[in-house]
């Protein structure tokens, strides 16, 4: 008996309900059991569907649960979809989420109040519910429900320490910036309904693939709107500003939501709509350019940051840029491959950062760390594995996915070579700043306070266990997508994901594969770039203690300050949007509200008072007068009735 798909989102929803409603009273151990139990159960349930699916014929399964909205000619069922794309997402979303739930037991243990602990796990479960809805949805509205749900959970969890001003502000910022993207998504959805008369994936994509000429004019606008949504959720320039601030949330949240799963929703959505995007080549180019620029932009900022989690956040943005680059050049499967590997190694990195943070008593400044290698071996080795993975060193996972992206952009027509070059440079940058972290954190001498030095210790088993699992995955996860040079069938993920790239009438699907020699060359170049970035960082920060980069920064003070200030994008937004908006609001308040609206209100109140001053003499206070008046009215009514009949 196969489990219906709708059960998957429902399991964590039940967990959320229990912990959210009763968690405060049940105590920590019960909350843990419910929260992690729900995550574990949903993982088991998901794999009980995934294993038959992957070993079977991979054909798309659509399971309608109940009728949801039926208005006019709009009819949407609550139906769920299992196809290779959602299967891939499902596989790592549930698994990583489960690991992070486990990790959170240890991490959140110091959370003193039961209420806070229960709230945390309730939100995590709610997030899992929303993410599964997003992934398994068969229609745009249902996906939007999940989309908004993950946004809400992100807001709730970023603002988890709501009693701290910056956390609350970060939560608000995340929400507001996401709303801008959501606005685009909504518009895109309206456009799709107006164009195709339906919001179900299967219908929309079928129509688009069969009659491309009929729909393509409108598709540019639709895809642009959809991509705007993806930019918001996946933190692409210029809507990236919320993600670094979102690190105010607890680290498991950063790992789960802001690195491994939620932020990839944009990539997932673009891949899901690949039929539409491929019919709008201008937008594809736009996607590629934005992705590539974001990758470089965020990578540059990451070099100059000192906050461990902030650097990881910018690196996430940068990696998301890579994914969009892949989508933009038409290599959707490669993009998804990177989504998956990234989930493993970025999850591992964040959890490692959490472990360090745990040891450092919540201090995140990498300048205060150093030499942690000896005291936290497990954290060190797993962190190192993930770093090598993100840097693109073979045979770690990131190498294969990133290399595939670079290869795809290299062979793309038009701006392809430029995109490849920028991507390559960013890869080097990534290796540099990632190894900068490793060098400063784990090598050299400890630079923190005495108390911190005394306190540093390896994390508990509940935290190291997920680290080890994810560290291993950082090593092996890439092996399912070996490049073609390793053999005809070395790449298993590409054929698996192939069905989601449905053929479009009139477009030739296949393109020439790169010659093997070129491919080897490209690989060698990217490994060389990554290795040199790595070496440079090791030399500068581990060996020389950071004197060279400090000199470099001193010689370009303006440029360095600009980068360290994240290109002052927040300040720009402040001047461009926030202040005019605040001014507008203040004007509306002072002029429109106080003078006009209140004026009207006060005037009418005054009028009422004036009239009341005379009419109040009707209130004699004598019940009998009232009764008599009432009775006279009754007589009048009776006379009217008698007269009428």
């Amino acid at each position, binding site marked *: 008996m196969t489990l219906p798909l709708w059960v998957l989102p429902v399991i964590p929803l039940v967990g959320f309900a229990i912990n959210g409603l009763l968690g405060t009273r049940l105590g920590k151990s019960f909350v843990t059991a419910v929260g992690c139990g729900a995550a574990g159960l949903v993982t088991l349930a998901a794999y009980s569907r995934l294993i038959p699916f992957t070993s079977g014929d991979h054909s798309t399964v659509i399971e309608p649960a109940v009728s949801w909205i039926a208005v006019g000619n709009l009819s949407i069922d609550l139906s769920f979809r299992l196809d290779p794309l959602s299967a891939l997402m499902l596989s790592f979303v549930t698994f990583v989420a489960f690991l992070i739930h486990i990790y959170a037991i240890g991490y959140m243990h110091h959370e003193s109040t039961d209420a806070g602990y229960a709230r945390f796990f309730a939100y995590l479960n709610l997030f899992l519910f929303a993410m599964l809805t997003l992934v398994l949805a068969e229609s745009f509205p249902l996906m939007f429900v999940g989309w908004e749900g993950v946004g809400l959970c992100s807001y709730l969890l970023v603002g988890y320490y709501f009693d701290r001003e910056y956390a609350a502000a970060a939560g608000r910022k995340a929400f507001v910036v996401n709303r801008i993207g959501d606005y685009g998504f909504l518009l895109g959805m309206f456009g799709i309904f107006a164009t195709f008369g339906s919001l179900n994936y299967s219908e929309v994509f079928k129509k688009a693939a069969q009659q491309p000429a009929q729909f393509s004019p409108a598709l540019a606008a639709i895809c642009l709107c959809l991509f705007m949504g993806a930019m918001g959720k996946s933190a692409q320039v210029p809507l990236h500003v919320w993600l670094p601030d979102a690190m105010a949330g607890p680290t498991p949240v950063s790992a789960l939501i802001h690195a491994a799963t939620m932020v990839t929703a944009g990539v997932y959505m673009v891949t899901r709509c690949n039929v539409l995007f491929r019919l709008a080549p201008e937008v594809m180019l736009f996607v590629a350019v934005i992705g590539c620029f974001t990758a470089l932009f965020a990578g540059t900022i990451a070099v100059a940051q000192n906050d461990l989690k902030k650097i990881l956040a910018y690196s996430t943005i940068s990696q998301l840029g890579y994914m969009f680059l892949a989508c933009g050049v038409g290599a959707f499967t490669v993009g998804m491959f990177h989504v998956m590997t990234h989930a493993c190694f970025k999850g591992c990195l964040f959890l490692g950062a959490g472990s360090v943070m745990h040891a450092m008593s919540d201090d995140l400044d990498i300048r205060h760390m150093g030499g942690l290698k000896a005291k936290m071996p497990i954290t060190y080795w797993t962190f190192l594995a993930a770093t090598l993975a993100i840097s693109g060193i073979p045979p770690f996972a990131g190498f294969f996915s990133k290399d595939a992206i670079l290869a795809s952009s290299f062979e793309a027509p038009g701006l392809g070579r430029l995109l490849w070059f920028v991507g390559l440079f960013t890869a080097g940058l990534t290796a540099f700043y990632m190894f900068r972290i490793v060098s400063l954190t784990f090598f050299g001498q400890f630079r923190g306070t005495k108390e911190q030095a005394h306190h540093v210790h390896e994390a508990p088993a509940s935290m190291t266990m997920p680290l080890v699992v994810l560290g291993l995955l950082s090593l092996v996860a890439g092996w399912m997508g070996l490049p073609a040079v390793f053999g005809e069938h070395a790449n298993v993920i590409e054929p698996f994901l192939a069905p989601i790239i449905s053929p479009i009438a009139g477009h030739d699907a296949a393109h020439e594969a790169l010659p093997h020699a070129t491919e080897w060359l490209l690989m060698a170049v990217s490994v060389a770039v990554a290795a040199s970035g790595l070496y440079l960082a090791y030399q500068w920060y581990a060996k020389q203690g950071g004197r060279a980069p400090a000199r470099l920064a001193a010689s370009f003070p303006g440029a360095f300050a600009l980068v360290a200030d994240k290109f002052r994008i927040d300040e720009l937004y402040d001047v461009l949007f926030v202040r005019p908006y605040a001014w507008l609001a203040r004007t509306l308040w002072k002029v429109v509200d106080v003078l006009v609206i209140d004026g009207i209100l006060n005037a009418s109140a005054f009028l009422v008072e004036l009239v009341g001053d005379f009419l*109040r003499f009707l*209130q*004699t*206070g*004598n*019940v*009998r007068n009232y*009764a*008599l008046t009432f*009775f006279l009215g009754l007589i009048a009514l009776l006379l009217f009735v008698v007269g009428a009949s």
Partner: protein
Amino acid sequence: MIGSIPLSDALLVSGALFSIGIAGALLRRNAIQIFLSIELMMNAANLALIGYGAALGTREGQIIVFFVIAIAAAEAAVGLAIFVALFRHSETIDVNKINLLKW
């Protein structure tokens, strides 16, 4: 012998009782007597309902009267409680002397 009362008889009696009740409600000053008059008016209405029920051969009239009696019980309980509270407050139940809500 039973069932031989014409509707108009019942209605006339009901009308007479209602008029007496309303006269009492309007012209008396003792809150208790006003209240009694209101009860009388309700019963006059009950009589009309029962009369119509008998004339039309339906039980609905009796059902409504059943509810009226139940509601009258509730009303009497609350009304008398108000009088007790009122009396405790101002030592009188002469409605002419109770005008707390006068402008």
